[in-house]
């Protein structure tokens, strides 16, 4: 899923203060799972904004709404009836959600309430870990299902580097060394031999390095 975090109210207000009415739109998918932009967070942000404006004696219309998925056209239509009544939309979707709203509601200013961070997993309640960079050619099969491109701070394919100490990354002791995880896992599976071979340079052209990516499938089109 996509993991994101709420921006500060100050930053959000610098973007939306000029509008009299704002539709605050959450997304009940990934960003709900990471407790940043789901139904609950949308309601809380709406309330916080209303309170802030009221305290300053400003008369604003702040309306909450939440879509099941902000990145899919069919769902986005769910707020179509509310959009015309508002001057702007504040999205609690990920970057994809914000841009999807902007594509559908072309005449409406759209603003992000979240900072979109990464593709990751919920490791435990309150802990989210980045583990996929979407490089376009998954090599997890060779690394014990632990991604060196994502979990190593230097994207080493023939790691580990010389800076790993007691299983922690040189960048920050809070970061577990991805290569230590790879080696431990392959060792416990008895497949350490997979790491003996030289891994040639990565073809980054399938990642974002090749420009914005797009998938088109004729068998899926209407």
């Amino acid at each position, binding site marked *: 899923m996509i993991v994101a975090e709420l921006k500060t109210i100050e930053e959000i207000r610098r973007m939306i203060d000029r509008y009299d009415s704002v539709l605050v739109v959450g997304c009940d998918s990934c960003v709900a799972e990471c407790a940043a932009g789901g139904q609950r967070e949308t309601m809380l942000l709406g309330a916080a904004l209303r309170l802030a404006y009221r305290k300053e004696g400003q008369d604003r219309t702040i309306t909450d709404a939440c879509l099941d998925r902000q990145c899919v056209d069919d769902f986005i239509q769910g707020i179509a009836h509310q959009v015309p009544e508002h001057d702007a939309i504040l999205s609690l979707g990920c970057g994809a959600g914000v841009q999807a709203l902007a594509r559908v509601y072309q005449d409406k200013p759209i603003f992000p309430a979240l900072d979109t961070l990464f593709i990751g997993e919920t490791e435990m309640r309150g802990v989210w870990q980045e583990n996929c960079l979407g490089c376009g050619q998954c090599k997890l099969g060779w690394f014990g299902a632990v991604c060196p491109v994502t979990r190593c*701070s*230097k*994207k*080493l*394919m*023939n*790691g*580990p*580097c*010389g*800076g*790993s*100490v*007691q*299983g922690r990354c*040189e*960048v*920050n002791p809070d970061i577990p*060394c991805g*290569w*230590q995880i790879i*080696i*431990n896992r392959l060792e416990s599976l008895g497949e350490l031999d997979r*790491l*003996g071979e*030289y*891994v*040639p*340079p*990565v073809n*980054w052209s399938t990642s974002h390095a090749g420009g914005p990516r797009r998938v088109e499938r004729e068998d899926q089109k209407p």
Partner: protein
Amino acid sequence: MKTESRLEKVLRAGHFAVTAECGPPKGSDASILQTKGKHLLGCVDAVNVTDNQTAIVRMSSVAACSILKNMGLEPILQMVTRDRNRIALQSDLFGAYALGINNVLCLTGDHQSFGNQKECVGVFDLDSIQFARTVKEMRDNGTIIGGEAIQGPPKFFIGAAANPFADPVNWRVVRLAKKVDAGVDFIQTQCIFNIDRFEEYMRQATDRGLTDKVDILAGVTPLKSAGMARYMAKNVAGMDIPEALIERIAGVPKERQASEGIQIAIETMQRAREIPGVKGIHLMAIEWEDRVPEILKAAGLHERPEV
């Protein structure tokens, strides 16, 4: 002989090699570099020129190598993959060789979060092992990555770093083997303070037959003070400074700590020299280039062979 490198000639002739390090200045003043370089003339076989070490912006290592070369030194061009993609790396290799530089040390580099440009993108298009393989293919096949032919292939003597003290410990020699397979000719190790652990590492390397395929130079850094020892032990990635060693420096009065540090470095060099498979010393006297001649003299390593 694979190259025109003086270091290769020294090693092939069976001499015990000595290299030192010279950090380029944080600016364009060539005289700072030349002053440092003067101290090293005649007492080392080659000089490593660091590449924006610890991710601090400094004079380009290619330019600094060229300046030192013109003074009569034999530069080892350090190149990190942190700052350049494969286009820039390969292009700089062409340029460096055209300037008469014959040695390259292939590194990934310290992460940019250590330096003074913490907000930058780290490139890491290649890792150090892929980079070493690239330099080898340029030299031996005359091709760049992807197989296109080179007009006048650069013929570098290829080096890499090794840290016998980083974790996971049981993986260090495997990684050394991968570097050797990638085509590395010589290795310069991370600073050795824990000589027992280094001896064990060398034993493993020898058992795997690696010391027959690659020349290993033992990395030594003289400590200037107990403070520096503690700082390095705590803050430098992958550094193993035993507590007993810190206590030894801390045990002498402040004004004598530098000479105690030098004494330890001399003892380390002498002991390293006795370890099977060690073919030379890489003396990293950080911002202490002027002391290199006396340290080498005291260690009996200052007279360099004619090759």
